[in-house]
């Protein structure tokens, strides 16, 4: 029942899942007949320290006949508050919110430039991810680029190669749309078994923003692109990795793909590609090229590094799925979720997020008995295409163990799979595109754990 060997281990970067034995074997292969050269393997995960449990708390009426927080007026009710713009002109969250941070998963990567920080989904409301809490994924470090010096070039199968400044792009008619962005490797660490404790680390590589920018088709038309023969478009970034990805022309023709400079009412954050990033709704985050500098129209796919070495999905027969891009319908309960504690029995609002790379979320069902029985949750409006959708369900916890799951369905009728179904077609070595139903075990103690059920 307990998977001592497989679970809880510290995992490497999403594209680099290699066990200690793996490194050894590969290493031996590589240096066969070469000079001797051995290194230590990954550091092991740290263990916890035992400390006794603490005293009771709650909201009882104190003996003095009232709550001192009510009876004794606090300073903020009896004194003068702070003035406007006291924080230097850009407001920050309350100091009491300091726990709500994007975080790295310890041991996942060795460098912070090719790494990930995860959004704290367990602490967020609604569907918009605050820009400062938006997950990060960089391939070669992030930059804060002077927007007055940034250029976008369009070339390839076009009548005229074009160059645009930000001033020019921002003159064009703009669209503002809410979309989710999810890394293809989100939830990758749990493909084989439970590896991380909380929803931040299992699902925190998804975020949702209102992006503002110009449809790519407008810019392609300005360059006179061959929209018939030019079936593929290459998007390229201006950073060190100059990330490239192939985008299907059919998606661009639909008008959905756009070059964005705005995010949640302000400019993009530098970590999100300031001043320009490609928005490819429904498609995995790696295609949303940051620091976008060039668009090339071509007649064949480009087999870029992140299309031929990484972001390919290994199947049980040894073949890799290439150009697997859509983030299929998925959902997760964000509270209660792993690492949290229910303080008492009684009423709770089960809440979570659902999304689909194929359109709108149509329905979300929630189970509290590990998938035997389901109830349909309330979708909080607006339900937008290829955006996060918030769901809620009333629940009275009776203090007994419960396994909470959510199962989303999108407007195409596709139903989010469970682990058994997903593994039966894709095995466990696929790394990318894990959209399985997530299970959280609420224990009698109230403590919630990340589990997988059979």
């Amino acid at each position, binding site marked *: 029942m307990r998977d001592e060997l497989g*679970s809880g281990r510290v995992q490497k970067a999403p594209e*680099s899942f*290699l066990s200690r034995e*793996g490194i050894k074997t590969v*290493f031996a*292969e590589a240096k066969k007949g070469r000079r001797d050269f051995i*290194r230590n393997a990954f550091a092991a995960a740290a*263990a916890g320290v035992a*400390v006794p*449990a603490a*005293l009771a708390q709650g909201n009882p009426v104190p003996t003095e006949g009232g709550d001192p927080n009510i009876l004794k007026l606090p300073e903020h009710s009896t004194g003068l508050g702070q003035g406007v713009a006291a924080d230097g002109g850009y407001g920050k969250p309350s100091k009491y919110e*300091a*726990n709500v*941070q994007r975080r790295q998963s310890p041991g996942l990567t060795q460098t912070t*430039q090719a790494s990930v920080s995860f959004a*704290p989904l367990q602490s967020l409301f609604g569907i918009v991810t605050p820009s400062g809490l938006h997950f990060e994924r960089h391939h070669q470090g992030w930059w804060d680029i002077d927007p007055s010096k940034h250029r976008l*070039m369009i070339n*390839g199968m076009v*009548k005229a*190669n074009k*160059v*645009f400044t930000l001033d*020019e792009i921002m003159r*064009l008619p703009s669209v503002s749309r809410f979309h989710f962005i999810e890394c293809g490797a989100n939830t990758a660490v749990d493909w084989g*078994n439970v590896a*991380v*404790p909380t929803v931040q680390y299992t699902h925190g590589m998804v975020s949702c923003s209102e992006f503002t920018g110009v449809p790519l088709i*407008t810019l392609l038309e*300005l*360059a*006179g692109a*061959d*929209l018939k023969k030019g079936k593929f478009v290459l998007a*390229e970034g201006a950073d*060190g990795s*100059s990330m*490239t990805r192939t985008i299907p022309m059919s*998606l661009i023709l639909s008008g959905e793909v756009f070059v964005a400079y705005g995010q949640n009412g302000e400019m993009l954050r530098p970590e999100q590609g300031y001043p320009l990033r490609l928005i490819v709704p*429904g498609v995995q985050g790696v295609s949303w090229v940051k620091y976008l500098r060039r668009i090339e129209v071509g007649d064949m*796919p480009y087999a870029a*590094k992140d*299309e*031929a070495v990484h972001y390919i999905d290994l199947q049980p027969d*040894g073949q890799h*799925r290439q*150009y697997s891009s859509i983030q*299929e319908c998925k959902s997760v309960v964000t*509270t209660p979720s792993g*690492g*949290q*504690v229910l303080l008492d029995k009684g009423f*709770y609002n089960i809440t979570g997020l659902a999304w689909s790379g194929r359109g709108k979320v149509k329905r979300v069902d929630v189970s509290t008995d590990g998938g*035997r029985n389901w*109830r349909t949750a309330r979708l909080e409006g607006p339900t937008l295409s290829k955006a996060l959708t918030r769901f809620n369900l009333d629940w009275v916890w009776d203090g007994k163990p419960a396994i909470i799951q959510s*199962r989303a369905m999108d407007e195409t009728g596709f*139903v989010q*799979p469970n682990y058994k179904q997903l593994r039966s077609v894709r095995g466990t070595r696929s790394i990318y595109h894990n959209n399985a139903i997530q299970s959280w075990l609420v224990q009698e103690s109230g*403590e*919630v754990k990340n*589990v997988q059920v059979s």
Partner: protein
Amino acid sequence: MFRFPKAILATALIAASGFAMAQSAAKYPGVGRDATPKEVAAWDIDVRPDFKGLPPGSGSATAGQDIWEGKCAQCHGFFGESGEVFSPLVGGVTKEDIKTGHVANLRATNFPGRTTFMKVPTLSTIWDYINRAMPWNAPKSLKTDEVYAVTAFLLSLNGIVPDNFVLSDKNIADVQKLMPNRNGMTTAHAMWPGNEFNGVKKPDTQNVACMKDCAPEPKVASFLPDFARNAHGNLAEQNRMVGAQHGADTTRPERKAGDADVPVKPTAPKADGAGSEMKAVNALLQKYTCSACHGVDKKIVGPAFQDVAKKYSGQVDYLIKKMQSGGVGIWGPIPMPPQKITDAEAKTVASWIAAGANK
């Protein structure tokens, strides 16, 4: 890369019916200008699987080895085995794979690693990526012939070409036909958002939205072992201090039913260290990617900073010079490249190391 010879371009313009109408240009006058050929040449560096965009040139595996040892080995290892910082590039492929174009080890569930050459089907990918993104801390600094040479060296390490092979724009397409996993890709899936690959329309999983008595009683098959309870830090400090649920205090053993909640104070991550001096050092270690090769208290590719501190305690000037000039041989055969770090910045880092490299 996409270059139209001018004559062909002119013909194409007249012949092609698919070109977007010039309506937009008329609609949005004054927006955008034509790129000059020089500008296009400066940025249009991509190389496709049909090698369109590949600049002429050549390089030998032997020359590639020299470049490798100077500029690549510190991250990727002498023989591309990497392992601890970056994924291994080399290994896991056989002569038989080169014949079949399928890497047999990918079918073996007991073969633990997946090296770059076990996966990549197209040699263009390797050339393009080295050219655009390597070396990691100085991308686009290799000359064209050096990219050919390094690519040739990697091919030779994988046994795809002989050790003295010279790779060039003339033979690269033929070498691509030897890639061990060239037949290892499929687009027969429903996860490409267009019909360009004539992929599969139907998704590969078909769950149904059953509502009642759907499954037998679930058994927990996998969860985190107790020793990993606090491996991600105290989860109590990763949840808001108020709310329907609080975070579990993972510095303590799992709570029992009836145990009361422990009040939590808001705590920002401590990754930046306590003092502002430590913050400055950490920022520089990241900026110059020092931490890719040096751990504070553990050896990665290079020695741990604390080991360096023991050997060169108090020797700030020596450490500054070492950072700026690089070196090899003192801690092992893997060279440290010279760092383009300013004197002031180097002094900050060197002072920290010379004082013991404390966290």
